[in-house]
């Protein structure tokens, strides 16, 4: 029983990390990045390649995070520089294009078959807590999520940069008038989104294996998490992700795997139709 809950929370933590990236990008650019899942895959691939090269845990994690950030920077270049004057929906189409381009590219460069990944830091060790066996990776995931949550909280509430970013999310024009470099803040939100997605990629890879479409599987769940949280709330996204993870786990246990996606989709529809501002959103989500 306990292991189910912890397993669900671990999956949810990963969704939460990805959802925070979705929310960060949404807050600053007004877009839902459909290629967020591909940032996860890029992180996971960077991680297994770095591991194959024989890097230390610190090195492999660093390589993964940097790859995620580099990809985030490319997304920024395409969407917020090249396409900056375009309508929102065209930018969304651009993220969809990036999604299929990266997936297809991965299929060409490496195989379509899932590749095995070693769990980060502790490998396959198992920990016993009160009579239940837990993979150490699960505990690493929960610890990482906690650390990230605290880090984001401190960043947004205590540092000038975090406050500047919140200001840009609130009102780009007035933020620019008060001397905040809006463009740099946009870049920063893409970098953080890339890093968090890559982190999720490293942590999820032992469970799912690494393959080109791995991001697509988690993207919808993470986005549903972000929608439940309110789409522009960072902590809402994290909690929404956790909730989706737990709901999915219990759905699989009680009604079977086939209905997992149905239940998540039902959650998505219910929130979008009846509570579009989610649990914590400030609701600038227009309903037209």
């Amino acid at each position, binding site marked *: 029983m306990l292991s189910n809950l912890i397993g669900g929370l671990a999956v949810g933590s990963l969704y939460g990390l990805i959802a925070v990236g979705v929310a960060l990008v949404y807050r600053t650019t007004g*877009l*839902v990045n*459909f290629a967020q899942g591909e940032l996860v895959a890029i992180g996971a691939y960077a991680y297994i390649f770095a591991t194959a090269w024989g890097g230390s845990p610190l090195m492999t994690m660093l390589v993964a995070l940097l790859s995620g950030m580099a990809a985030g920077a490319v997304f920024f270049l*395409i969407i917020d520089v*090249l*396409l900056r004057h*375009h309508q*929102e*929906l*065209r930018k*969304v*189409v*651009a993220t*969809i*294009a*990036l*999604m*299929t*381009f*990266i*997936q*297809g*590219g991965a*299929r*060409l460069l490496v195989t379509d078959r899932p590749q095995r990944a070693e769990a980060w830091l502790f490998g396959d060790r198992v920990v016993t807590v009160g009579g239940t066996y837990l993979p150490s990776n699960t505990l690493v995931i929960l610890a990482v999520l906690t650390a990230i949550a605290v880090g984001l909280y401190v960043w947004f509430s205590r540092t000038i940069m975090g406050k500047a970013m919140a200001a840009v999310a609130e009102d780009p024009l007035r933020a620019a008038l008060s001397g905040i470099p809006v463009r740099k803040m946009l870049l920063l939100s893409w970098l953080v989104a890339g890093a968090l997605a890559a982190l999720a990629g490293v942590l999820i890879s032992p469970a799912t294996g690494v393959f080109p479409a791995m991001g*697509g599987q988690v993207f*919808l769940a993470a*986005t*549903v998490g972000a*929608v439940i949280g309110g789409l522009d709330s960072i902590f809402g996204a994290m909690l929404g992700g956790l909730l989706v993870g737990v709901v999915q786990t219990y759905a699989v246990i009680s009604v079977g795997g*086939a*209905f997992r*996606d*149905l239940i*998540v*989709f039902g959650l*998505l*529809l219910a929130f*979008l*139709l009846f509570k*579009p501002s989610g649990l914590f959103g400030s609701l600038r*989500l*227009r*309903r*037209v």
Partner: protein
Amino acid sequence: MRRLIIGLAIALLLAVATLFVGGYLRFLLGQLAVAVIAVASLSLLGNMAGMISLASAAFMGFGGYGALILLTMMGMPLVFAIPLTLAAGWVVGWGMGLVAIRLHGISLAIVTFGFIQIFQVFAKQGGELSGDGYGLVVPDIVVPGLGHMTQDHVAAACVFAAAMTVVLTANLTKSRIGRTWLAIKENPIAAQMQGVNLLMVRSMAFATAGAMAALAGILQALLLGITNPNLYTIDTSISHLAMMVVGGSTGMSLGAVLGPALLFFLPEYFDLGAYHEVLFGGALLITLVIAPTGLVGVWERLAALVTGRKQ
């Protein structure tokens, strides 16, 4: 009316011409025609009503599975199975439109993305109705006057249907309904002030697009002889989206032919199957960045340059 008659004549001519080209090419032309119908349905939503849908593959699947269920399990003749499936596609599209009316453009894209996953659940776990996850097979169909239906007949029918779709959507653009859709795309609030019933019009757009995509699905299933979950994935929807944007978005239905011709027919003809996704994604990105109005827009600009006229 005259335009319609000319259109009908051209469609018939093209369909007959299809019967005279070589076997594999004819099969490809049939598939191209299916893609044209699907892209036209997406284009109706995107270019005319200003809504992005990723559900085209799911509606195609609905058409394919729906028609085959009626044909094989209910033993219904083709002449009843096709209209019934189209009507069902229309109703489901209408329901989707009712949901769409309450959503912001981006949320709609997410919901339609999710809709594909749900359809996949049916296609893979639908039990007997979806052939236990392996898909359904087209039965032997006898058409009065034609005898046993072959792939050649279906290919010609596909080409005819695609040509008619292009003609009819072009006509729709110029009609009251098309102008209402355009008004909504340009400015929903202003359109409402002019007395446009947003709920009604948007759900009609979705219903029409749903029926069109279902038609593409029915024809595809008949052409391939099977349905299969892998035919109706998110990648299929994205390929339609890519074809629509690359083809062009100035409201001309020519784009719905140019896009599939470039992105489906050429890669398929030159056997570039492995590069599909990279091609689609790359072409989509390049179009968005350097030619936002697509091939049709490029064509119009070139024409303006040659004739020296300003648009």
